[in-house]
């Protein structure tokens, strides 16, 4: 059975998937810089690159038997290397969902949905932002909801991510209409309208490249 239609991937494959995701986010550095420059301080691309570079370093240095450790390694790499709002926020996207989770050796759509669901909650607790505040939450919350719906329908991991990507992109679009309440863009008021949020864009890139990796695995 190809991964494309598989219901789960091993911890080691999760590692490979996030290595690929990291490459794609690092490639998007100029785009993210440009978006953050328009209404923020222009460092989001740099920050995400630093975080995923560190994550890749730490992922490559180890063999992983549990999904928990892969998520923890990615998240802690970000928190300890990036700084900025996104260091804590995107770090929490990876570590926030595995707190108290029993060790898992493989990842399926159910597990991904529940990890990200808990992570979303943790992000909201930490950052005090909510849907409509022009943050990464505007992309991440629809992602989580879509993953949950697809998981309930017992769809494959890659199908879930395909749907989630669409939801994420819609979320990014939505941020254009919002006034920022958090982060460096918040002082902009009405003037932020028309510009998409950098962090939300990163969420969409992460989800898109998770899907791509799974598809690529399927095609090989």
């Amino acid at each position, binding site marked *: 059975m190809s991964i494309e239609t598989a219901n789960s991937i091993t911890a080691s494959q999760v590692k490979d998937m996030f290595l690929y995701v990291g490459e794609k986010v690092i490639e998007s550095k100029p785009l993210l810089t440009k978006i953050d420059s328009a209404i923020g301080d*222009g460092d989001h691309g740099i920050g995400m690159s630093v975080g995923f570079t560190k994550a890749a370093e730490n992922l490559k240095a180890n063999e992983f038997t549990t999904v928990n450790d892969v998520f923890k390694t990615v998240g802690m790499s970000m928190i300890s290397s990036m700084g900025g*709002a996104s260091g804590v926020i995107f770090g929490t996207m990876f570590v926030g969902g595995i707190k108290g989770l029993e060790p898992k050796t493989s990842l399926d759509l159910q597990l991904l949905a529940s990890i990200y669901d808990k992570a979303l909650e943790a992000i909201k607790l930490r950052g005090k932002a909510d849907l409509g505040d022009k943050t990464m939450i505007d992309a991440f919350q629809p992602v989580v909801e879509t993953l949950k719906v697809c998981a309930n329908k017992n769809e494959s991991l890659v199908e879930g991510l395909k749907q989630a990507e669409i939801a994420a992109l819609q979320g990014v679009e939505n941020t254009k209409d919002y006034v920022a309440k958090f982060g460096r863009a918040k*002082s902009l008021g009405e003037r932020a309208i028309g510009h998409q949020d950098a962090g939300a864009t990163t969420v969409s890139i992460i989800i898109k490249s998770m899907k791509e990796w799974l598809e690529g695995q399927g095609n090989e």
Partner: protein
Amino acid sequence: MKKIINNPGHVVQEAIEGYMCAFKDSITKVENVNGIIRKDLKEKVAIVSGGGSGHEPLFLGFVGEGLADGVAIGNVFAAPTPNTVQHVAKAVNRGKGVLFVYGNYAGDVLNFDMASELLEFDDIQTKTVLVTDDVASAPAERKGDRRGIAGDVFVLKIAGAASEKGWSLDEVTRVTQKAADQTFSIGVATAPGTIPGETEPPFVLGDDEIEFGMGIHGEPGLKRTKLMSADELTDELAEKLLEESNIQPGDEVAVYVNGLGSTTLLELLIVNRRVAQLLNKKKIDIYDMDVNSYCTTQEMGGFSITLLKLDVELKELYDAPASAPYYKKTQKIREGVK
């Protein structure tokens, strides 16, 4: 913009190395993180500041007597990581607690707060005072939402002086919060500064365009106008600043005119002259003035004006000596202090 750097990713680390070479007699680097602390730590509440780099001499230049005991340094325009803050706080803590004093930015709040949580496990008590001086960033009724810009200097000065007096964490926090509540700034940008390694500036201003209220990371401001004379510009900024503050005729203020990077001291002094004229006209007493470029945005052009409204307690703390590599204050001889 040409930057004299090696690798964009090593800028902060190498700058800290160079800083240590110059000032190692009075400061120490915290191992493994981008943190710097005083050598002569006292048995007192510790003051920890920090934030993204790129604003030099803030924050790293302000470690010393009567100022910060330690600073946690992030990458350019990015808050320091929680473990950087944590390690700095642990290094300066003398069992009397740690006060965090830093500018109000989402990233800094997230990281310092996370550090506080981590420090709880180390049984280190922390309190936080956010600097919220930039009147362009939120209306007066949401003073606590405002960003922190050059006002960092005044608030840190008061915190450092209070801690040197041996006050308790609660007392140091109280008076530092008072200083933060009484600090108001406004800035204007004439040209962008560039992040090392980036080839494009984060914003573009026309040849004769300036932007009121722009933030120290290039956050968009209140409005764009044509370049005007120093006096017109200062008048308009100062009027707005007074409007958005609670400063009244008869009040006493400390004034600080801050260059953002490439605006020359010659220009800043011309602005300072006008600020003095204006405050005199408005019957606001000038207790002290300083003109410098303590809080920069790389080679950004422009300046900001900061006012700290003083009372008897704040004046005494303001006048206390301070000595860090990039900020030194000797006791002033005051003729006929009120």
